[in-house]
């Protein structure tokens, strides 16, 4: 009977050796930890990547040791000055102690639920002692978000490592926002602010425009008045020159000038509305009245 199966013996031996090797040797990649358990009881963790051996009756469990980024749901927090704030954060974490991890949490999904609780309570405690303007302010100096988060990271890391074998590398605020019910009033405020700024722009433009126009008008007046001044001066020069010329000429023969100028005036003074009462004794009419004797 045994003789009959002897020929299968080498194959069976080979198979047994293969199974033995399969159960004994294992590799560990850089991205993972291996936890060796014996009948369900965790014994030790292998962190060195490479080729390893264990007893065939021990079993190995693989854990991803890479950094994960967990995004908790956005939640609403109340700041110290009683303002509501919706904060979306992320937690960068990795498994640090697989033994503790498997004993307390088991899988990453459950771990993230625990992390959510720790981070949430940490954040709400931290925000309860900070005013809104320590997170949001137009000047970077007053914002203490970095210090707050560093403290929160350290606190979360301590709690998670002790309890769950998790290393929390970083807790950061990804997004700050206001609750939906507050947004309408924020929009209204933003609109009012914009309207104020728009009005200011328009008024400033008007101011500048008026200034430019007034300046232009002033310049115009200045230019014209200066020109008037110069022009009158020039005219005066002309008049003076003319007067000088006239007086030089006329003073040589004042009697003739008087005669000539008076006769000239007569032409202008007398027109068709003038009625002249001439005495028959006058120079002009004497000849008419008295004949040739009048010429004397």
């Amino acid at each position: 009977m045994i003789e009959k199966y002897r020929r299968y013996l080498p194959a069976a031996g080979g198979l047994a050796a293969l199974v033995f090797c399969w159960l004994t040797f294992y590799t560990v990649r850089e991205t993972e930890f291996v936890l060796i358990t014996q009948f369900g009881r965790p014994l030790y963790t292998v962190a060195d990547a490479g080729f390893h051996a264990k007893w065939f009756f021990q079993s190995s469990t693989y854990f991803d040791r890479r950094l994960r980024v967990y995004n908790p749901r956005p939640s609403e927090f109340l700041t110290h000055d009683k303002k509501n704030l919706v904060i979306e954060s992320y937690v960068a974490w990795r498994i640090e102690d697989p033994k503790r991890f498997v004993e307390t949490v088991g899988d990453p999904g459950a771990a993230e639920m625990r992390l959510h609780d720790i981070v949430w309570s940490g954040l709400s405690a931290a925000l309860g002692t900070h005013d809104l303007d320590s997170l949001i302010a137009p000047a970077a100096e007053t914002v203490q978000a970095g210090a707050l988060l560093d403290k929160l990271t350290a606190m979360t890391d301590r709690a998670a490592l002790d309890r769950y074998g998790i290393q929390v590398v970083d807790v950061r605020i990804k997004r700050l926002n206001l609750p939906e019910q507050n947004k309408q009033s924020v929009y209204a405020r933003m609109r009012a602010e914009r309207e104020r700024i728009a009005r200011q722009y328009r008024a400033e433009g008007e101011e500048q425009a008026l200034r430019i126009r007034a300046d232009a008008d002033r310049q115009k007046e200045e230019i014209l008045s200066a020109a008037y001044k110069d022009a009158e001066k020039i005219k005066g020069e002309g008049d003076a020159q003319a007067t000088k010329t006239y007086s030089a000429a006329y003073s040589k023969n004042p009697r003739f000038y008087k005669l000539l100028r008076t006769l000239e005036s007569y032409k202008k003074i007398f027109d068709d509305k003038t009625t002249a009462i001439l005495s028959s004794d006058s120079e002009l009419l004497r000849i008419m009245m008295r004949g040739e004797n009048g010429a004397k």
Partner: protein
Amino acid sequence: MQALLHTEQVSIVAPPTRQRGRRWIAAVIAAWLLTGIYLVNTQQQAVVTRFGAVVEPRVLPGIHISLPWPIDRVTRLKVQQLQRLVVGGDAADTVVGRTQPLRSQFITGDQNIINLRAVVQYSVSSPVDYLVRTSNVAQTVAATVETALAQRVATQTVDTILTSGKAAIQDDARAAAQRLLDEYRAGVLLSTVNIESVTPPPEAADAFRDVASARADSSRIVNEAQGYANDVIPRARGGAQQLLEAAQGYRQRKIDEAQGDAARFTQVAAEYSKASEVNGQRLYLETMEIILPKIKKLIVDNKGNLDLTIIRKGER
């Protein structure tokens, strides 16, 4: 007989079969060894792991030898190729026309809400870290950039962000996110963080547009005033020049007239004085000839009384 034949067949065929089998085995072994030769392309770098442990962290392009599969494994990475990531509103969504208000909303330092979308480009700086340190590189990069952006936006006023502050925010956010990624040893190099769009929320967009048009109005009004000034001042200068020219003309005219009049007078006076009696009479009479035809004349006798009724009649 059958058994005999069988053994004969075996004895005849066996030697070549065994030889062929050896050749096959040799060929298989050779082929297996050949899996240890691998090629890294120009844009690539490779990481070699032996039983999962990294033995060659950075293999440069070229042909290389390692231990055959599955002892050594080669992972090639396109190191220089830029990978693109959208932070804020999802790019695909804006194409379709939907918006994700919550995803793209940021709150500014002066507590305004703005919508912001940034595009991140990154490449691999350390192949080993890239492969080994983080479980989801893209997600990590997105989270760090978003954090950096939110932090910068929370310390700026909305006007700065919408106008001049964009470039500074981009640079700061890139540097801050890079610091975080280095801290996580993600093996990633952020090449750019580019804020593609930053807009006020639709609920207040019209008010923001009005500010822009107010700015335009303001500069239009100023330009118009400038135009007025540019019109008025040259005209005034022209007018001034006109006044001066006219005055100069007047001066010249006065002088010339005076000289003319004087010359005429001097000549006439010279002749007059040669026979002043006669010339005086002549001038007097000539003038009377011009004047008297135009006017009404009443001639009264020297001794007689003046009857004024005649004048009244004449006036009527």
